Every structure is written in structure tokens, then in C-alpha cells.
């Protein structure tokens, strides 16, 4: 992939931060307003995919390379599982119980409330975003047509 024209590159450079910021907003407000980890993660992945489409393959590698995205994918999955077994050693707590809400309930309608739900949204957002991005890099870099062109 060689990248697109100068107009597309300039516009992509400008709106890249806004798209990532919007994805973070959807992830972090997931327990207060519509949205959540999955949709926000997809939006963040779309920002990186847009960078790669506009500038070609080399540029997006400098911002989030393949090895780092695989590591973040696994960190997101393990963080979600860790939140599930958080109350394992406490008595009378089932699997995936909201332990933080039981012991430290925050004030409702604030961003620091609802216990482990925002943390789970964050874990799913990291996992989905980096997973989709690594699938995209896999499909575009290992494509036989791509190998022939370069």
C-alpha cells in the first residue's frame, strides 16, 4: 500500500486525535450513557486503520506496531479475567461478582462509580481495539497480492 494524496494525509493527521478521543469517551462513559467497551474499541481501531490507509503501511507501524498490539490484546483479556476472579478469596462471593461496588460503592452518575463495570469496559475496549487492528494488519500484510506488489 503506497498511501493516498496530500489532502487525505493532512485531514487524517488532523482528525486522528479526535477519533481516538471519541473512542475513549465512549469506553469511559459506558456505564453512564449508551456505548461501551466494544463500540469504543472498534472506533479506536478505526482511527489506526485510517492512519494506515492514508499513509501506507510503514507509518502506522511507528505508532502501534504488531508486537505491541498483540501484547495489549493479551493484557486486555487477562485484565478482564483478573476482574472476574477479584473476589475469589473473600467468603460468599461468586465468580464475576462486582466486589468493588460491594465494598467501596461510589456515588451514582459520576465517572468513578458502579464498581468494576468501567474497568471491565476499559479491558474490553483495549482487547477489541487492538484485536481488530492486528487482524487488519494481518490481512493486509500477509495478503499474497500485497506480496506480489512489493
Amino acid at each position: 500500500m503506497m498511501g493516498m494524496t496530500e489532502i487525505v494525509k493532512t485531514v487524517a493527521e488532523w482528525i486522528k486525535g479526535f477519533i481516538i478521543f471519541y473512542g475513549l469517551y465512549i469506553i469511559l462513559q459506558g456505564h453512564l450513557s449508551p456505548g461501551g467497551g466494544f463500540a469504543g474499541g472498534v472506533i479506536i481501531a478505526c482511527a489506526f486503520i485510517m492512519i494506515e490507509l492514508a499513509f501506507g503501511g510503514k507509518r502506522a507501524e511507528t505508532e502501534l506496531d504488531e508486537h505491541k498490539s498483540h501484547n495489549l490484546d493479551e493484557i486486555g483479556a487477562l485484565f478482564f479475567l483478573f476482574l472476574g476472579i477479584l473476589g475469589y478469596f473473600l467468603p460468599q462471593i461468586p465468580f464475576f461478582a462486582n466486589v468493588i461496588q460491594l465494598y467501596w460503592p461510589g456515588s451514582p452518575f459520576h465517572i468513578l462509580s458502579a464498581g468494576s463495570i468501567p474497568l471491565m469496559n476499559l479491558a474490553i475496549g483495549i482487547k477489541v481495539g487492538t484485536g481488530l487492528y492486528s487482524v487488519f494488519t494481518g490481512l493486509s500484510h500477509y495478503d499474497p497480492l500485497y506480496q506480489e506488489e512489493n
Partner: protein
Amino acid sequence: MIEIAVLFLLLFMIVGMLFVLEIENLLSAVVMMGAIGFGLSVIFLLLGAPDLAIVQIAVEVISLVILIRATIHRDIKEKADESLSQVSAIPILVCLLLFFLLIYPAMSFLPVFGSPVFMNYYSSSIYYLQEGFKITGAPNIISAIILDFRGYDTLGEAIVLFTSILGALSILRYRNKKKEPSES
């Protein structure tokens, strides 16, 4: 009013699906798939499901178009050779007849379209709606259900996503490795 709009959007989606099936250019078909996904997203928004509308517009409209456009580098023009007339109509008719014959007793138990399903006091959905905010402290009840009450289901969903990404990447990498010695 909402029902008329939903029916109009459904008609739009059916016409778009016919375009997708009949069009020759692959890129036009993909863009038309995005339009169909947008129609479904507007239907979700009209029926009061903004969460689903956001996910639908993010996944189907943006990701599908971008992913297919990015991974296929040339516009492939293809026309299928075999037409529908070569397939015999009798097995399809028999299958449809058997399906409706077997599904008819079950369909009489279904609730009327648009009516709430589990209005029983002891059912879990009423419990979630009444006590969900008090227990979890999250105003968005969908987040409260999928991440607190049904967190185990979400773990399964995450495992499915993880396994599919792992499988796709390992297959693609295997093909790349097999291709490398022939190139060098």
C-alpha cells in the same frame, strides 16, 4: 409513525440486498452493504436501542467497508456463471414446507410483535430492571446486565474473539511462511 418508518427502512434494506446480489463491481456491493447496515442502525435507534445502534454503525458500516476496501487491492469484477434455473426447485420447496409445518405449533406460543416478553414477576429480567441500578450503581442498564449480572457470558464472548483472532493470524502467518522459500 415509528412502525411506518421501520417498514420503509426494511423495504430499503431489501432493495439494497437485491442490489448487492446483482451488482457486478465488488466495491459497489460493499458500499451497498454499508448502506444496509446503516438502515438497520436507524431501525435500532427508532426502536429505542441506542447501544445496539452505536455498535451496528461502528462494526458494519465503518469496519466492514474499511476492512474489505483495505485488504482487497483491486476491484474484482465477477459474475457467477450458474444461474438459479440449474438448481431444482423441488428440494427448496420441500424444505420450506417442512420448516413451516414443524414451526407452526411453536409459533402459536410466541408473544405478539412488540409486546414485552417476560413480564412474570419472578423472571430475572424484571429483577434486573427493578434492582439493577440499586445493586450495580450503573445508570446504563445494558452495561449493568452484560458486565455484572451476565459477566460470565461476556467472558465467553471475549474468549471467542480472542480465539478467532488467534486462528486468523496463525493461518495467515502459515501461508506467508510457506510462500517465503519459493520466493527466495
